[in-house]
């Protein structure tokens, strides 16, 4: 009797996961984090916002028209995350766009633009939240772009172009997923095994949606960068992106 009940719950959970598109499944929703952790993640993220914002202000002071490009860049990242990607397991999911954004605009700029995108996702499509914005911004607008950018700057020119882009985009996704699992584990440690067990647990649960997504997004970013190189070499050069052949 007990087991049948368990089977029903697990079956219902699997149905939700399989049926609903794992849309933006890694945004921690409003009110999910206890107040203390929400504050801690804001404190961790704010320095990145301040430095990124200073850089933006300097860019705008030198060239006032850059702000138009930046506005469209944020909108582009938002719209990119509304794309429906076929994932390798058959369902579909949404790319985060952080890898591509970091390659195109750099990690400091992305820490601000990515956070604006996260805020828009909370306010326009009800994904994520205001009190959890610090935590979400840290995983998606800080760690993801930095991982992508470090891989890109470190490897471009030394490894095949497609491999570098794939690694940058896929690992940015994976690092976002790992950081979010860690944030959940720190806030909700396992009663038996502590933080480490909770981390493994949340990691395993979200692996269902996030690992296929990382692979799809890696492939898509490679294809986009190739297409950009052939179609938009002039625009890329205007943005002064390293490693792009003209």
């Amino acid at each position, binding site marked *: 009797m007990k087991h049948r009940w368990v089977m029903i719950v697990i079956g219902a*959970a699997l149905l*939700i*996961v399989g049926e*609903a598109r*794992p*849309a*933006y*499944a*890694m945004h*921690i*929703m*409003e*009110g*999910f984090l206890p*107040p203390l952790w*929400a504050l801690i993640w804001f404190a961790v993220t704010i320095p990145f916002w301040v430095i990124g*914002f200073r850089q*933006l202000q300097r860019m705008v002071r030198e060239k006032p*028209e850059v*702000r*138009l*490009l*930046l*506005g*469209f860049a*944020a*909108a582009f990242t*938002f*719209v*990119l995350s509304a794309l429906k*990607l076929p994932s390798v397991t058959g369902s579909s999911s949404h790319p985060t766009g952080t890898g591509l954004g970091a390659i195109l605009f750099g990690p400091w700029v992305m820490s*601000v633009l990515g956070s*604006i995108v996260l805020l*828009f996702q909370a*306010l*326009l*499509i*009800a994904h994520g*939240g*205001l*009190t959890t914005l610090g935590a979400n911004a840290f995983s998606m607008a800080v760690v993801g772009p930095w991982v992508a950018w470090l891989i890109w700057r470190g490897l471009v020119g030394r490894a095949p172009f497609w491999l570098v882009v794939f690694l940058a985009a896929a690992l940015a996704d994976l690092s976002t997923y790992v950081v979010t699992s860690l944030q*959940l584990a720190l806030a*909700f440690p396992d*009663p*038996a095994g502590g933080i480490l*067990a909770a981390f*493994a*647990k*949340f990691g395993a*649960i*979200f692996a269902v*949606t996030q690992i296929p997504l990382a692979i*799809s997004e890696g*492939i*898509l970013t490679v*294809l*986009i960068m*190739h*297409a*950009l190189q052939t179609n938009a070499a002039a625009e890329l050069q205007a943005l002064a992106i390293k490693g792009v052949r003209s």
Partner: protein
Amino acid sequence: MLRIIDQYAFANRLRAVDPLHKAALAGMTILLCLILDRPLVGWLALAWMVTVMVWYARVPLRVVGAVIGAESVFLALSVIGIAVSVGSEPPPAALLAIPFGPLWLSATGASVQTALHVLGRALGSAAALNGLILTTPLIDLIELLRRLRAPVLLIELMALSYRALFVLLDTLDQMVTAQTARLGYASWRATMRSSALLGSRLFIVAYQRSQALEMALTARGFAGDLRVLPLSYTVDRQLWLIGVMIGGSLVVAGWWT
């Protein structure tokens, strides 16, 4: 989802009410949910917010339900994650324990309670946030940020992105329609190829649109600042009363349980 929320944000009965009041109501509810931190408070906030949205702001219940359910995947996965723990041996006071290879999946009374607790809190505060976004268009919230003296550049970037977003989304829709008509999404490979073309083309469109906007602004004497007229709002005394009732009942519920 984007267009649905945006449409009702502009078309509901509380559209003209000062965004500061609506934001204060939502902010107060979220803070009370987080600080009082009782399951009953969360469920009560959910009930209040659905009532305000459906009965007072005249947003259809169907839309409210869809918006609150938008994050069901995250919520389901992570609440299960909190309730179930994994160990090499079953805990002594387990409510239920299932062997899974060498591991035991188990749920204790305490862990289920924590999970339900978080579920209530998250649903209550998410409903409060959704109450704000379903009654207030983003331009009003940007205007609110301007009144609260947020940095000018941040406000300009937000306003510009909000404007650019719908331009790009329309372009995206047209391109997807064109691609679909040519069997662009017929197989996995075709979908990847079409998505890549879409992403790169969209980047070029975004870049060119920003250049065009720059040229248009320069032609009109753009000096580095985007100035727009402030909007005017009404004051809704009934909403204040509702806010006091919500706040009072949540505090009572928090102390009572």
